[in-house]
């Protein structure tokens, strides 16, 4: 219970801190701007079916710079300023620490997605017939799961370095290679490797959500990988005590 309380305290601090620094507002503005531009370009098309599927289909690429920008300061900034020493000498386990930071960043991600909801309202007002709510809800679920997975990768990168720039670039590069290898890369790879890459493909799983299909296997894929990366980040924080 105590571990949950301290974890929640870290999460709330992290969430609020993102609104106290310019980078939080910049990320918010960037994401809202990108969504708005794509909404006007690909969704708000006269005569086209009322659906946000084009947005959800490109969600992974859109999230590529956003999630690392949120996660880059989670641990790196604390290591740089030395405030990590205060956290690490508090009665908090590394897992609570990593989970707290991850949840705080996840709450900020939900705030980002919340900023796009007025666009859904616009679509509902201007469309006739009304868009099907199923694919839209599944799409937002996929965005949340995808964002959390990317944030967990960013958290791991952030726990490895005191440089926010390195953390940002490292996470973005890792995610870019992941997306590229599991899309274009797998068609050129030998069959055995191609099969492994296909099983790790994020975009394939997003397509199902975009159609309005919520497959528990796909949800499990995101949850398990996210948990694994958060656990790896907490282990990195533990290893720091031995350095």
């Amino acid at each position, binding site marked *: 219970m105590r571990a949950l309380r*301290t974890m929640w305290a870290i999460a709330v*601090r992290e969430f609020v801190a993102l609104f106290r620094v310019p980078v939080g507002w910049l990320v918010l503005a960037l994401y809202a701007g990108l969504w708005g531009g794509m909404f006007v370009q690909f969704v708000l098309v006269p005569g086209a079916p009322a659906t946000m599927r084009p947005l959800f289909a490109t969600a992974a690429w859109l999230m590529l710079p956003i999630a690392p920008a949120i996660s880059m300061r989670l641990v790196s900034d604390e290591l740089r300023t*030395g405030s990590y*020493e*205060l*956290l690490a000498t508090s*009665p908090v386990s590394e897992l609570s620490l990593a989970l707290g930071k991850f949840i705080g960043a996840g709450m900020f991600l939900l705030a980002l997605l919340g900023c796009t909801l007025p666009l859904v309202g616009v679509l509902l007002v201007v469309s006739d017939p009304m868009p099907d709510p199923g694919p839209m809800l599944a799409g937002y679920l996929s965005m949340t799961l995808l964002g959390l997975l990317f944030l967990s990768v960013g958290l791991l990168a952030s726990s490895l370095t005191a440089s926010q720039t390195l953390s940002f670039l490292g996470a973005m590069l890792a995610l870019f290679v992941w997306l590229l290898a599991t899309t274009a890369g797998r068609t050129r790879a030998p069959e055995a490797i191609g099969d492994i890459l296909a099983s790790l493909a994020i975009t394939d799983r997003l397509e199902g959500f975009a159609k309005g299909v919520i497959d528990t296997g796909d949800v499990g894929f995101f949850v398990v990988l996210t948990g694994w990366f958060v656990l790896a980040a907490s282990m990195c924080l533990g290893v720091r*005590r031995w350095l």
Partner: protein
Amino acid sequence: MIEARNLQKSYGRVHALAGVSFDVPPGQVTGLLGANGAGKSTTIRIITGYTVPDAGWVRVGGVLASRDPIRVRQHIGYLPESAPTYGEMPVEALLGFRASLHGLRGKARKAAVDKAVDACVLQSVRRRRVGQLSKGYKQRVGLATAILHDPPVLVLDEPSNGLDPGQITETRSLIRRLAEGRTVLVSSHILPEIERTCDRVVILARGRLCAQGPLEELLAQGDHELVCEARFQTEPSAKEAARAVGAIAGVGTVLPREMDDGVERWHVGFDPATIGEGDLRKAIGSNLAAAGAEVRLLEREKASLESLFLRLMEQGPDAAQAGSAA
């Protein structure tokens, strides 16, 4: 309250600590002294659980840090060097957050924050952002975060670092107030600060223990020391005279301090059981006269932590440990 045994820690090829053992008794203010790179911060980081030692162990309040690190951290209030914190947070929010990390909530958290604000005299800045405060106030905020959960042990790493003389005086009296009823370990290389604040000292040099004990006892060792100042015609004659003084029965050490315009200054340690102070003065006087020196000063050394520290640094940890073993 704090027991450290055989602490060893290396960073690559650098041995930061090479088998340091010491005790910090309950209810006392203990100073951790050493030159830069002596291993003070590493020792403190091991005690607070930030770093794990390569070998050795630490017990705080009877709890072994390696067995139950979370409980040990509950016992300790810690102010790291330069008091790092979250500059974007208001003082009150920061203290509330830190109190939450110690499991305080609701009314207990608010009461703890109010108490820490009062104790560290932060009323006028409690709603200001920490990043906007002066260094002295930031240090006070750091101290407030350290005492929030009313810990029995306070560990303060260089609390006076970078402060102006006025702020140093304020911080000193604040530490003295906070120390009431607590065990305090304070690291510093500002010796007068330690002398005024601490009951006990632990002295490190090059990652090894030089001395530990009550400040008065350690300073009493300096009572058996004469300061000798004399003008010599040539440098070789000064060295020869120093050797001759060192050869007097009962003289322990002859430590040259400084030389300026042909004036040599030595600290001559002696064993009063072998030679009396009067006889030693006469013997030194005759040796200096034989060397053709003009004696300017020959008096008992006024015991100070600074002279003790310098003596131990010159002797080095090996000599100090050999001395204590003997």
